[in-house]
């Protein structure tokens, strides 16, 4: 520990914040929170059973699409995702300076295309809903869309351009957070599986790691789709989070002559072009638990939907295929805030918004743990929103003979 870190730690203690925080999970949420806490002088240990980013963080596509992804029924989430989008440029600057690494942030915007008249009607319905929420979206003709992206197949029925929905390379983001976190004094323990939550006297006291125990004043649950499964978690603190499987693949474009400049959404698929020439194609949405298999139908659907709008992909080499598990809460919104058990904090349930919300998650949890005032946008996203009992079984059963 450097003298400055030691001094900060003393200051942190003086403010009655916890001196030692243990975080379960080294994805972008856990590392981001850890980085912010370490910056504030807290002693932070992040435990990861595999390697940093090996869950949803590496599997994601890195879209920062608060606008085009907003759908009816999820209006409340928009305030949070817009905040994420707004915080991203400054977060990138600070993180790149702290780590010395680029996170591959690209700001060419996002294009959504419809290929049939039915698709165009659906897109119009969605766009009018999104514009009604104040989102800036431009309705384009097919030829206007093709002027933006000349490799698009003729026959685009309509398109929408969102100038403010960008992308970041999520795998670079993990590496940058890892460096920034450890440079700030945080300790990352990869390949260390947490085997239990330690609680005593009505509060979290640390983590069990096989035969060893690790004491802490606060514990952050940031284990993504696996967050419910931490042994020792009291039932009332098991977040309503499940894995939602996604299959993806990447094709290799010539970086000097990419087929696409912007993030592209087409019926049944999205495409994300990286600077290094990788073209990410995603993603299936499957309620299959932790089934990690790539399926013929999954890959076929993604490739077929891609070929319909970007026929030139046929010549590209397949660079990679993978499966990821979105940590999906019951209402698709993240669960950020204190648990029922004192000293336990939730940072999970981000569904498909973990990368977009990384700056928000890091700020929200570190502020809360340090006892700083909470950001207003966070109201309503704590674990307590699921506490009310849902419709009981008896009500449904009673309606039957």
């Amino acid at each position, binding site marked *: 520990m450097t003298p400055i870190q030691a001094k900060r730690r003393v200051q942190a203690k003086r403010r009655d914040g916890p001196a030692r925080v243990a975080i379960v999970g080294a994805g972008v949420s856990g590392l981001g929170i850890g980085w912010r806490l370490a910056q504030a002088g807290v002693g932070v240990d992040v435990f990861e059973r595999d390697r940093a980013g090996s869950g949803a963080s590496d599997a994601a596509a890195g879209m920062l699409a608060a606008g085009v992804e907003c759908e009816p029924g999820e209006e409340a989430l928009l305030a949070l995702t817009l905040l994420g989008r707004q915080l991203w440029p400054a977060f990138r600057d600070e993180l790149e300076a702290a780590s010395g690494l680029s996170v591959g942030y690209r700001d060419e915007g996002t294009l959504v295309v419809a290929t049939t008249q039915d698709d165009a009607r659906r897109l119009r319905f969605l766009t009018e809903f999104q514009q009604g929420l104040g989102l800036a979206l431009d309705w384009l003709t097919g030829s206007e869309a093709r002027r933006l992206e000349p490799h698009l197949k003729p026959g685009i029925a309509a398109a929408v351009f969102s100038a403010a929905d960008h992308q970041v390379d999520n795998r670079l983001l993990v590496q940058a957070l890892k460096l920034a976190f450890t440079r700030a004094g945080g300790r990352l323990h990869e390949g260390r599986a947490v085997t239990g939550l330690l609680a005593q006297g009505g509060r979290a006291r640390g983590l069990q790691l096989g035969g060893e125990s690790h004491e802490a004043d606060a514990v952050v649950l940031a284990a993504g789709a696996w967050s419910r499964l931490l042994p020792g978690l009291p039932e009332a603190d098991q977040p309503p989070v499940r894995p939602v499987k996604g299959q993806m693949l990447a094709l290799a474009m010539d970086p000097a002559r990419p087929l696409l400049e912007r993030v592209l959404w087409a019926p049944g698929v999205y495409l994300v072009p990286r600077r290094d020439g990788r073209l990410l194609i995603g993603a299936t949405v499957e309620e299959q*638990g932790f089934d990690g298999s790539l399926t013929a139908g999954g890959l076929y659907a993604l490739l077929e939907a891609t070929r319909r709008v970007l026929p030139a992909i046929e010549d590209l080499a397949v660079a990679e295929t993978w499966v990821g598990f979105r940590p999906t809460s019951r209402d698709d919104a993240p669960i950020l805030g204190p648990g029922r058990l004192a000293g336990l904090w939730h940072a999970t349930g981000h569904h498909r918004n973990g990368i977009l919300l990384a700056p928000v998650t890091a700020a929200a949890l570190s502020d809360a743990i340090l006892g700083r005032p909470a950001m207003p946008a966070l109201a309503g996203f704590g674990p307590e929103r699921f506490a009310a009992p*849902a*419709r009981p079984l008896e009500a449904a059963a009673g309606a039957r003979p």
Partner: protein
Amino acid sequence: MSVTSMPTASGSGEDALHIAGEAFRSRLIAGSSLYPNQQVMLDAIAASGAELVTVSIRRMSLEGYEEGPLDLLGERYRLLPNTAGCETLRDALLTAELARESLETNWLKLELIGDRETLYPDVLQLVEATETLVKEGFVVLPYCNDDPVACLRLADAGAAAVMPLGSPIGSGMGLCNPYNIEIVCRQSPVPVILDAGIGTASDAARAMELGCAAVMLNTAIAKARDPVVMAGAMRDAVAAGRAARLAGRIPRLDHAEASSPRLGLIGS
């Protein structure tokens, strides 16, 4: 007064839906796909008043896991597994067996799609599959065309109810051929459940007015601008349509019929 509290069958008390000897209070069967998220799904299905909820078992893990859709729905509703995604008799039979084993129900909404573009049912295979599944002990509710003869054949094959389409799945076009639906309702020896094509509440009410025993719908709620409010509208529409059917509509006339009496006026 909400329409759901309107009197239903003429003084006979409860007007229950009977399928295969079981009675249901709600005449709306809800699907569980396409919702923005599971909370909206639970809230919308609760608002719809549905007791039976269909699940596409080929599209989800049958092992069941906490917070998974089967667990969330299974503890609240009676599940009606469907064979969505099946295109051959063999697929449908395998899927049916899987459903029976894992969900512990012998009820099945049988879907056998003959064409991926229109999602029209494959009637030839459907009749055969119904017959086979009934022999295997299933209670079969086939999704079928609005063809009165096909519906009769399915009933002959042992279907517990028939589920003719109003218009193509997910199209929201409503009832494209109400005359056929009415004939199916008049002729069918088993309950007729209108399935597919409902776009808005009046479509559901219309189906009930034509004599359907129930309405099955999914997209019209799940993809509405406000799914929970639309679910409530559908519940009321189904109840209103049913009540209107029981009450008996007036005949359609070609000319006006004054609603004030014309005899007994002063000076006549």
